[in-house]
């Protein structure tokens, strides 16, 4: 058994490994599948029987090379049509981190899939073909990543082998991209010259790019500091479920179960329960493994309070001097995800925000954003599939919200069609994250 394997096993069990989620986006030819295949292959995550199967299918089809996209394209329709239909999740681990990849395809359903993949991502990987430079699609990827508040963007300038590993080409792409990105709110932007096919700067530092002083992609992802991305300031605890054991020995027990959305909670903290507005104190924070001294995101805990007050699912616990806005009129960006009907003014939907359901009516469509040019079109009456727009909603009961860019957990919601029960929109409270 190799040392790496022992390290991995030990790190996973003793809790020194943390979790990083990243989303990749791109079209058929930019080498995205090859890059993911390379990361999985070089981190020894692809199993031999999977590789055998991919090799034999590639050979059957008469391909010159092993088609690594076959590793992710699992559905029959995908194999038959040679396209990727949906977000695929892939996993690999090193002794430092476990990685969850949300691999999003690049064709027509693209925006819906990218929004889905980016919604939980710490990092967005954007591939740029070194021969083509920054194209419309690179801009679209970046805009969506910032719209979803992804805190780190890594631009992989791929196919460097096809431009003789030219520093000038890389620098020119970096300049173009940086100029475009300056209009968006990108907290952390990194550029890496790679060749996914040849393996340059993916896992190992390449000798072909002596002018590049940064890390290879994998070490960059392993070291990326994501702990400070979470909001640890504003205490928000949406009550998910009330635990009341129906047994004789714990008849008086009442605990509020939920996942900490943001902030750090401690026993003894003064808190307020919304919508009632009653103030009380945290008596204890419990888990099945015993009480804890503090709770922070994304811990799933049970909070007990010193006073008996009436709190139920959908209520929110915050600090008396730091509460979310209680709003029935919501100003939001939405991405429309339903192919059967567009969003129009006057329509009613079910809305889910944290653990609270309500009903919402569309009062106004302010504008639609062109995801390629960032142009705002105010002369619109509907938002269609894969379009992004700013709308005003009137909700049947108050939601306890923060602006999405400050707090994605309490700034996000979904709209659900009440007749089909389908999820039709992703919504983000507040304005666009970019300057125009």
């Amino acid at each position, binding site marked *: *058994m190799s040392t790496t*394997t*022992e390290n*991995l*096993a030990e790190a*996973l*069990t003793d809790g*020194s*490994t*943390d*979790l990083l989620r990243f989303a990749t986006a791109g079209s058929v030819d930019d080498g995205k599948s090859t890059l993911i295949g390379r990361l999985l292959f070089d981190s020894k995550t692809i*199993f*031999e*029987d*999977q590789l055998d*199967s991919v090799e034999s*299918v590639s050979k059957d089809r008469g391909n010159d090379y092993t088609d690594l996209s076959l590793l*992710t394209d*699992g*559905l029959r329709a995908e194999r038959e049509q040679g396209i990727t*239909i*949906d977000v695929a*999740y892939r*996993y690999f*681990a090193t002794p430092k981190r*476990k990685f969850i990849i949300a691999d999003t395809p690049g064709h027509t359903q693209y925006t819906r899939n990218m929004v*889905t993949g980016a919604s*939980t991502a710490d990092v967005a990987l954007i591939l740029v073909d070194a021969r083509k430079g920054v194209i419309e699609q690179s801009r679209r990827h970046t805009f969506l990543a910032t719209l979803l508040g992804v805190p780190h963007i890594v631009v992989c300038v791929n196919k460097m082998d096809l431009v003789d590993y030219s520093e000038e080409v890389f620098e020119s792409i970096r300049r173009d991209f940086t100029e475009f990105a300056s209009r968006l709110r990108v907290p952390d932007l990194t550029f890496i010259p790679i060749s996914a096919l040849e393996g340059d700067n993916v896992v190992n530092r390449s000798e072909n790019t002596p002018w590049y002083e940064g890390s290879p992609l994998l070490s960059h992802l392993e070291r990326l500091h994501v702990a400070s991305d979470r909001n*640890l300031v504003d205490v928000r605890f949406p009550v*998910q*479920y009330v635990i009341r*054991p*129906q*047994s004789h020995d*714990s008849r008086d*027990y009442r605990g509020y*179960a*939920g*996942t900490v959305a943001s902030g750090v909670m401690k026993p003894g903290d003064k808190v307020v329960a919304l919508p009632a507005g009653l103030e009380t104190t945290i008596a204890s924070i*419990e*888990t*099945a*493994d015993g009480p804890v001294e503090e709770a*922070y995101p*994304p*811990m*799933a805990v*049970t909070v007990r309070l010193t006073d008996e007050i009436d709190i139920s*699912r959908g209520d929110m616990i915050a600090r008396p001097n730091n509460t979310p806005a209680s709003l029935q009129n919501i100003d939001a960006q939405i991405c429309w995800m339903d192919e059967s009907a567009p969003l129009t003014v006057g329509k009613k939907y*079910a809305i*889910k*925000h944290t653990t609270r359901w309500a009903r919402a009516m569309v009062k106004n469509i302010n504008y639609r954003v062109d995801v390629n040019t960032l142009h705002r079109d105010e002369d619109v009456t509907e938002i269609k599939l894969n379009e992004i727009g700013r709308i005003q909603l009137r909700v049947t009961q108050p939601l306890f919200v923060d602006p999405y860019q400050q707090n*994605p*957990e309490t700034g*996000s*919601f979904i709209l*659900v069609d009440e007749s089909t*029960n*389908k*999820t039709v929109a992703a919504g983000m409270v507040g304005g666009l994250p970019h300057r125009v």
Partner: protein
Amino acid sequence: MTSHVLSQLRSLEAESIHIIREVVAEMQRPVLLFSGGKDSIVMLHLAAKAFAPARIPFPIMHVDTGLNFQTVLDCRDRWVERLGIQLVVASVQDAIDRGLVKEEPNGSRNRIQTPVLLEAVEKHGFDAAFGGGRRDEEKARAKERVFSFRDDFGQWDPKNQRPEIWSLYNGRVHQGESIRVFPLSNWTELDIWSYIAAENIDIPDLYLAQEREVVERDGMLFAVNEFTPLKEGETSERRSVRYRTVGDANLTAAVASDATTLTAIVEETAAVRITERGATRGDDKVSEAAMEDRKREGYF
């Protein structure tokens, strides 16, 4: 002062607990599908954590093929006893006797579990069923949602899945429709073993290596027992083996292994180069789309 960073196992644990609580809060009548394998045991362990100190507020259901290793049944009964939960058994043998399903020629009862499962779900009026499926297991699973919508025939339509954004799950269904929920979606085989070792979770001893009488068939090692007796012309040998998956006793193979402790299993899993199903499950080898087809029909 801590760093306020959860380890990856604790992050996965928190995510699963969140999912399980969300189902109980929003659905009318959930059930947990329990096979007795390691994944369903981890799922049950997480469900117990989600509602402590209260009991798990839903029953578990075992679709019993009648081809179980005794030690798996023993382990199941220990869990039921310990947690004080209700066990529903849906019997495949009973369904065969009633003529609902027919056994396949190779003796596999894998595929015919589906009608039995769907019948039991309908009979008991379950509108949400937890399954232990993981996305790293198989390509069709890699694209399935955490909350996976099923129509009133229990079918999965991969082209018509609900978008799943952030952790805002949508479990809304009409009468007769249901959802399958996969709280372990983001766990890998290695995570499962690391967690079992870290939490010292009670699992059937089949998973641990032990000297067993085995016979080699199609490159797979089968333990010689009442379900897989020695055929004419075959010879058996004693080898140290363990099971990576626990399916039907007549079709599940063991792998050569010296891992007699949970820690050793974690190390072995970190080093292994063949998928668990590829190594041990005769029933999954049928076609490249075998799992997708079974899932469309309403399989776990």
